[in-house]
C-alpha cells in the first residue's frame, strides 16, 4: 500500500535530518532542521492512523496538532528569539569535528537498523522502521548533547532525544491516553522554555554560551 511507503520515506527523512543536524555548523539552521523534523513527526500519527483504520480518530489528531503547534512553531520561535536577543556567535563549535560526528552518527544509524529489525515487538508495528528510527534518533540526540559545547545546541540535542521518544511513542498510539501525552508535550514545552531562560541568563552572566567554561563546580 502506498501510505506504508510514505511512512517509511518520512522515517528515513527523519534519520537524514538527524545526520544533517550533526553536519550543520550554524545554530539557526540546527533549530530549523529540528522544526522540519518535528513537522514530519507531527504528520506521522495521522499517516499511521490512516493506514491502520481508514478513519481519523480524535486522539491522533490531537496529538498531531499539539505536537505541531508546540515543536514546529512555539519552541523554534523561543529558541530563535534567544539566539537573536543574545547576539550569540553563530558557530556551533563542536568538541568532535563535523565529519567525525557525521561518521559516528551514521555508524549509530547503521547499528540501530541492524539491531532494530532483530528486536521483536509483541504486536507487529505498522512500519518495521519505527523502532530503528526512534533508537537512532535518541542516540543521535544524545550524541549531540555530549559532543556540542553551545548551550543552545544542547537544548536542541535534548529536543532530538524527545523526538526519538515521540517516535517510539507512536508504536503504542492506541494505548497512552491523550491526557498523558498532552501532559508530556506540555512538560517538554516548559522544559525548553526554562532552558531558554537559563541559556539567556548564562549569556548574560558569562556573556558566552560555551558550556565548556561552566566548570567552576568540581571536587577540589
Amino acid at each position, binding site marked *: 500500500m502506498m501510505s506504508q511507503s510514505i511512512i517509511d520515506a518520512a522515517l528515513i527523512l527523519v534519520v537524514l535530518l538527524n545526520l544533517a543536524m550533526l553536519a550543520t555548523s550554524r545554530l539557526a539552521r540546527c533549530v530549523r532542521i529540528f522544526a522540519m523534523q518535528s513537522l514530519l513527526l507531527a504528520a506521522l500519527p495521522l499517516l499511521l492512523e490512516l493506514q491502520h483504520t481508514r478513519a481519523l480518530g480524535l486522539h491522533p489528531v490531537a496529538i498531531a496538532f499539539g505536537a505541531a503547534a508546540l515543536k514546529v512553531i512555539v519552541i523554534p520561535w523561543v529558541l530563535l528569539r534567544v539566539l537573536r536577543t543574545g547576539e550569540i556567535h553563530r558557530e556551533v563549535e563542536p568538541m568532535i569535528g563535523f565529519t567525525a560526528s557525521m561518521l559516528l552518527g551514521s555508524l549509530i544509524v547503521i547499528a540501530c537498523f541492524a539491531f532494530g529489525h532483530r528486536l521483536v*515487538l509483541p*504486536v507487529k508495528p505498522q512500519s518495521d522502521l519505527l523502532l530503528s528510527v526512534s533508537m537512532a534518533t535518541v542516540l543521535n540526540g544524545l550524541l549531540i548533547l555530549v559532543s556540542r559545547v553551545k548551550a543552545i545546541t544542547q537544548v536542541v540535542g535534548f529536543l532530538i532525544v*524527545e523526538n526519538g521518544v515521540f517516535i517510539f511513542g507512536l508504536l503504542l498510539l492506541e*494505548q497512552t*491516553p491523550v491526557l498523558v501525552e498532552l501532559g*508530556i508535550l506540555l*512538560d517538554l514545552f516548559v522544559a525548553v522554555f526554562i*532552558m531558554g531562560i537559563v541559556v539567556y541568563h548564562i549569556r548574560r552572566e558569562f556573556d558566552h554560551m560555551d558550556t565548556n567554561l561552566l566548570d567552576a*563546580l568540581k571536587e577540589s
Partner: protein
Amino acid sequence: MHVLFIMVPVAFGLLCLALPWPRWQLASLVVGSLVHLGVTIRSWMTETSIEADAFFGIDPLGHLFLSLNSLLFAATCVYFVGYHRKALISQRIFLACVLGLLASLSALCMSRHLGVMWVSLEAASLAATPLIYFRLSARALEATWKFLLMNSVGIALALLGIFCIAVATQPVKPAIFLTTGDLIAQAHRLDPTWLRAGFLLALVGFGTKMGLAPLHSWKPDAYGEAPPPVAALLSGGMTLGAFLGILRVYQVCGAAGLAQWAGTWLVVFGLLSVATAAVFVVGNNDYRRIFAYTSVEHMGVMVIGVGLGLGGSYASMLHAMHNTLNKGVLFFMAGFFWRLYESNRVRDVRGALHHHPVAGVLFLGGLCATCGLPPFGMFFSELGILFAAAEKSQWWVVALFTLTLCIVFVGVMTAMLPMVFGPPPENVRSTPFGEKRWRTVTMLGSAAGLLVLALALGAYQPAFVRNALTQAAATLTLPIDSAAIVVARAAEARP
C-alpha cells in the same frame, strides 16, 4: 481528598503570586504547607480506598512518601521564614515554585498511572529549577544548568522506559492502561524482554534524578549552590519521588517474577553509590557537598535494601523515612552555619559548640543520625539491611556494605568534628541576625523539631508507624512471593 493534596499548594502558590506584600507571601507559604500537613494527618485518620483504573489513589507506599514530603515541606517553610533575606529578587516566584514543587510531588506520590507519575516528576524538577538559581550567582547558574539538563535527559530516558513497558503490555488483551494496579494484576502476561528493557531505562532515568552513582554528579553542585532549605527539599523530598518511580517499575517487575533479576541491578547500583560516596566524602572540604554525598550514600542504601527484598525493603522504608528527617536537619544546620560563618568550607567553620551551643548540639545530633549511630533510626535500617543480606547469605554485599559505610563514617566524622569542637575562630558574629532572635529561634526550632522526631522514631517506634512501614514494604515484596502469580502462571501454561 486526593484533589486537596494538589489543589491546596497550588491555590496558596497562586496566592503567593497574587499578594503584593512579602510578609503576606511568606505567610501564605507557611499556611499552605501547614494546611497540606493537616490534610495529610487527616488522611491518616480516615480510611482511604483505591478505585481501580483511576489516575490518582493512595496506596501504603505512596501514602508514606506523601506524608514524609508533607512533613519536610512544613518544616522547611517554617525554617525559610527565619532564613530568608529582605533583598530577595522575585521572592513571590520562589515561594510559588516551592509550593508548586510540593503540589507536583504530592501528585507524584498519589499517581497510579506511570505516565501521570512521569509528568508530575518532570513538573517537580521544572519547579525545582528556579529554586536552585535562587542566589542569582554565576555558580548557582552553572549548577542550575547542570541540574536541568541532566535531569531532563534522565527523565526523557525514563519516559522511554515507560514506553517500553507499554510495549510490553501489548500482548495483554483487552488492552490495559499503564495504571500500576492493572500492570501488577496482569504482570504475568507482560512481555518479559520489553519489561526488562523498560526497567533498565527507568532505572537509569529515575536513577539520574535520584542521584545514584554514576549518575549522581549533578547532586553536589546543586546542593552546594542552592539555598540550604531548597537543598533539604531536593535531597529529602524530590529524591523520594524518583525513588518512588523506581519502586513502581520494580513492583511490576516483581509481580512479573523478575524480582531477583531487578533486585540484583538495584543492589549493584546501590553498592556503587555507597562506594562513590565513600570515595568522595573523604578529604572533602565543602560541608554542603559532603552532605550531598551522604545523600548519594543514603539513596544507595535504600536501593540496596529494596533489592534484597523481604526484610531489606522494610529497612529501606525505615531508611527513607529517616533520610528525609535527617537531611532536613543537616541542611537546616548548614544554612544556619552559612549565616553564622558565611562560608561553605569546612576549615572556616570551627568550634560551633562553644560559639553557639544549641546549634552545635543540633549539628552533632544530625551528624550522629547521618552516620547511623543509635539511638537514631538509620542505625536500625542499616543493621536491618545488613541482616537481610546475611540472611540471603550474600557475603559480598555484607562485606562491601560494611566497608564502604565505615569509610563514609570516617570521612564525615574526620571532616565535621572539628567544625563542632575546639575553640571558635575570631571575627565571627555571635548570632546570625544581630538582635533578631526570632529568626534564630525559627531556624533552630524547625531543625530541632525534625531532630527530636528522628530521635523519637529511632528509639521508639509507635504501632502506626510500624504498620505504615511494614505495609509499604509489603507492597514491594508481597506480589513477588504471593502464590497467586504462580497459580496464574500455571493456568497460562496449561492450554
